[in-house]
């Protein structure tokens, strides 16, 4: 029996608990949360041991693996503690708020030789796996541009009272939502060399961003756009979509289907019903079950592939970091020269439009 501890029993922690708790090879030896209320109710009704501190959970319940589903700010500290004690670690996305921390944990995990995984469940969605297979096989030829979009109804009013609405805790659309898009982008198209044209806005939120747009530049000339908005109530839940253009065709993929257009052959569509493999236990989407069972399988069978490893997730963190730094430079545009030359009302209008932001800057 593999002994697992779960740190953080919020939305994601509870979902993970429900899935691993049904695994025939797993025993959940302890839960930990800073909020005593949920913890008390849970332990009362499930009989699982509860701890107010993750160190106590690790020391007293002696898990071999830890699932960390706490606010992002706390990931680095808890993951480090677990790695230093040789525990296998599954941590929720995004990986870390600081890329330096992330790098150091990637190295630490390698030294500890433990399974390390981040909860980018989209990698376990059949349609995205099919997209990866098609792109790898060159189905649409050499790629020249892609777009990854994510929309959903998380924030529809100014007030929020969880860590998701606090920047310092790792809240905001960039970390919470755009991370999925960044992860899919780096997985499907590789690590971009740079980022430009980033716009990170609030729509409703006071302290955090609600939408993120950026262009990714790859060393081989490939470009891509990320478009993310978690204040879009036209979607029932997060809807993630990938489009890619190649010299020989086009590919569209979302959770439900993978459509590919090949020149000379036309469209070919495969649906989730044929792309989705069976899972052992279903709670809220095959991908959530599949990623957990994969984590357990990696530990049990020592398989080396380690999908969604810390190293892979660090790439998404690096993209987010680039977008954040790019956006912090304020709105910039190469047409600024022409606007400046006109000195007229356009410039004033633009200045008003970006009021509160630094004045329009020349592109470097």
């Amino acid at each position: 029996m593999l002994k697992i501890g779960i740190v953080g029993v919020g939305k994601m922690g509870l979902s993970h608990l429900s899935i691993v708790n049904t695994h025939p090879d797993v025993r959940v030896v302890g839960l930990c949360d800073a909020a005593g209320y949920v913890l008390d109710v849970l332990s009362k009704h499930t009989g699982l041991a509860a701890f107010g501190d993750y160190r106590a959970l690790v020391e007293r319940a002696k898990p071999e693996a830890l699932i960390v589903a706490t606010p992002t700010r706390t990931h680095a500290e808890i993951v480090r503690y677990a790695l230093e004690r040789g525990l296998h670690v599954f941590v929720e996305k995004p990986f870390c708020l600081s890329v330096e921390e992330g790098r150091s944990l990637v190295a630490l995990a390698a030294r500890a030789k433990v399974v390390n995984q981040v909860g980018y469940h989209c990698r376990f969605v059949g349609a995205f796996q099919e997209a990866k297979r098609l792109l790898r096989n060159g189905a649409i030829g050499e790629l020249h541009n892609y777009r990854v979009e994510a929309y959903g109804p998380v924030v529809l009013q100014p007030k929020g009272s969880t860590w998701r609405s606090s920047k310092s805790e790792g809240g905001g659309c960039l970390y919470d939502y755009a991370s999925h898009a960044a992860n899919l982008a780096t997985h499907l198209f590789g690590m971009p060399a740079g980022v430009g044209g980033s716009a990170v806005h609030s729509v409703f939120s006071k302290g955090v961003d609600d939408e993120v747009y950026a262009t990714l530049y790859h060393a081989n000339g490939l470009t891509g756009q990320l478009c993310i908005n978690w204040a879009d109530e036209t979607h029932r839940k997060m809807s993630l979509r990938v489009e890619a253009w190649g010299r020989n065709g086009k590919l569209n993929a979302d959770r439900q289907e993978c459509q590919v257009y090949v020149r000379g052959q036309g469209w070919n569509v495969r649906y989730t019903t044929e792309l989705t493999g069976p899972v052992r236990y279903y709670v809220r989407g095959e991908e959530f079950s599949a990623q957990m069972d994969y984590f357990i399988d990696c530990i049990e069978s020592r398989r080396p592939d380690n999908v969604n490893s810390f190293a892979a997730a660090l790439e998404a963190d690096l993209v987010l970091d680039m977008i954040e730094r790019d956006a912090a430079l304020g709105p910039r545009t190469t047409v600024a020269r022409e606007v400046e030359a006109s000195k007229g009302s356009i410039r004033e209008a633009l200045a008003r439009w970006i009021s509160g932001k630094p004045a329009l800057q020349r592109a470097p």
Partner: protein
Amino acid sequence: MDRLLFGDNQFFGVNHMSEEKARAQAMRFRETGAVIEVLDAALDEGIRTFMCTTHDRIGEICGHLRANPARYKGYVLYPCMPYAHKYNNAVAELGMLGALNRFVPAGGILQGGMALMTKDIERVMRLLIDAEMKMFEGLHAPVIFLQNVVVDFLMGLRFREAFRVFAAHVKERYGAEPGFITMNLPRLLDSLDEVGLENPIVCANINKIAFRMCGGREEYERAIATRRFRPIAMSVFASGALPAREALEYVCGQKAIRSIVFGASSRAHIRQTRQLVQELDA
């Protein structure tokens, strides 16, 4: 239970095959009148049970049913609670306790607050059920379902007592039978056995390609054939992956399946399904 039950996914932009289709449906059914038109078409085809999520918009439909008692005499509702995205989004926004606070009914603030404070989760559950049932007041709802995301989540936690609490409250307060929706049928039957719920009504995906049938097709077929429960088949067309006749042949071939819940947006499709099932049952 009727042989054919009418489902509501198509009305709320739920489509497991295509997000574009889902959006087109959300647009088509923007007005409640468009939903009622389809319900009426189903009723005219003899399908008089509507199995519906406790989505806010169902409240408007309930209002229409109440306002036209003659037209809807004998009409049956099978509420399925909760509409999970409402809670999911609230938990992301307000946290676990904040979400509970929002949904525990206003009329019972003191009662609800007390239940929350004393961590009396059974009482909180009863209050949440009552909040979800409010929109069905005065209508005939003889079976009340717990949605699969909640059933499978609670089963995963091994919080099986919750099933007993749900069943008891639904019986006592609403004189209704409890129903359970699941994606893990064989396992749920074991869980319901363990809490002593006999011959339960269980709704699960039952389709030829085993789409969202955890445990696999053979285990499902064995459970349906040998275990004592009242199965309702959903997702019989596997979101359109199966041709109608082939899909229904598979389901109608399993004689223990009591009812089939299906969704459709046009009278022609409703009629086709009804005729096929009648033909295959004959």
